[in-house]
């Protein structure tokens, strides 16, 4: 027993291996002396960070962190040649499904002018401060199913409010999912994918997702895959929804 108790400081300082730490945790549940000591030591230990002076966070740090996390996280797992070949193939398929179409542009123009008109009305009728905060649609994509088995359709829009940009994906007639399956939204820019989150449709087949776009991030295509669960950092399932073809 006494021998085990000697590891208290190593445990507190985080110097035990994962296995040793688990072992010591079992000891803690049996040894009242250690668990009461640990509690007291932790009080002091957790007060140590407050020695750090308050520092101003560099404003660019947030987008640096987000880019780092999401690029890094999606670059992780199978690092074989196989995987990168798959990614390339996937990218080609992705791009092919995304030919820009006139109809979208027309609708987009219509939306923009409707938006402007709306803003004009607002301008006349309400306080100016509300206008400066108003959300604007800066990008719009019509989406539709690219598989025979579904008639899902909807849109994806980028909404700008002040400095924040949010992607909104709104779909209906989505096939109901089985088990843990989820639809996952991917953005594509210069051949690089970015995960924009997952959604599961409601019983009526309606599904929605919002995603705060990091920093200055821009994308030129969007696709949706059907995934076995919502935890993937890269596409594993097949693409089921793409940008609408004329």
């Amino acid at each position, binding site marked *: 027993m006494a021998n085990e108790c*000697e590891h208290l*400081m*190593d445990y507190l*300082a*985080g110097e035990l291996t994962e296995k040793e730490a688990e072992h010591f945790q079992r000891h803690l549940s049996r040894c009242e002396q250690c668990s009461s000591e640990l509690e*007291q*030591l*932790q*009080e*002091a*230990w*957790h*007060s*140590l*960070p*407050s*020695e*750090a*002076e*308050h*520092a101003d*966070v*560099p404003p660019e*740090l*947030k987008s*640096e*962190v*987000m880019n*780092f*996390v999401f690029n*890094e*996280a999606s670059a*992780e797992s199978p690092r074989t040649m196989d995987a990168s070949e798959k990614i390339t193939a996937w990218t080609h398929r992705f791009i092919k499904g995304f030919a820009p179409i006139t109809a979208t542009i027309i*609708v987009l123009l*219509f*939306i923009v002018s409707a*938006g402007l008109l*709306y803003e004009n009305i*607002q301008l006349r009728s309400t306080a100016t401060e*509300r206008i400066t905060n*108003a*959300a*604007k*649609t800066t990008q719009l994509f019509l989406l539709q199913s690219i598989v025979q088995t579904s008639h899902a359709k*909807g*849109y994806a829009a980028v*909404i700008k409010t002040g400095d924040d940009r*949010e992607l909104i994906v*709104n779909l*209906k007639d989505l096939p109901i999912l089985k088990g843990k399956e989820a639809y996952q939204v991917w953005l594509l820019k210069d051949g690089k994918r970015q995960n*924009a*989150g*997952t959604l599961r449709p409601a019983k009526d087949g*309606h599904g*929605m997702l*919002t*995603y*705060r776009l990091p920093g200055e991030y821009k994308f030129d295509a969007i696709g949706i895959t059907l995934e076995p669960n*919502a*935890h993937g950092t890269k596409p594993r399932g097949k693409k089921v929804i793409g940008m609408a073809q004329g």
Partner: protein
Amino acid sequence: MTVPFFFNFEPFTSPPPCDNFKRIIEEGGESLRKKSDQELMKLIEQKHRSAFEELYDRYINLIYSYSLKITKGNQEKAKEIVQHVFLRIWTTKSRYDPNKGLLINWLITVTRNISIDFIRKEKKHEEKQQMMVAETVITQESKPFQNIHIEDAKKRLTDEQQRLIRLLYWEGYSLREIAAMEEEPIGTVKSRLHQSLKRMRQHLKTEKEGRVDGQ
């Protein structure tokens, strides 16, 4: 104020039902701010990005300040540490357990572990570092600290006790390394640290009680 723009969509898709408006607007903003730390971590586990950003907004000040101190004010290194901390939070499988204490303590533990990995890797590239850093530590003047109470509590410790805590907590030396530097058995180092921390805690406690009494 973000609601009206949706009318823009009327011409080409039927507008989503009203509670959906509310829901997406809430998920993207206000309501996340009202979520508890625990709720936030749950969402992050489900790869909810807005929740992740909310966590960043909530704790970046502390994490960055901490990283800056542990890197002795090196901004570039501090930023690198912060990036890895958030990557770990996003990808880790060892989850925050609310039964084991506050989220901030968990976050700081993650930050300290990553920082110490960095520091140790750096040390490997240096020669004779142990002696040099040890000397720096001795002569280093303590900066004005933000928290007066912990500073007071620490002042009650002897220089030697303060130094041990600094070597272990902020400088990333292992207990074994400290023992070697001190030319003491590791058991002695451990019990000294143990005593120092307990003494600190005692002073923190009396101050806290004193403050409550004083009010």
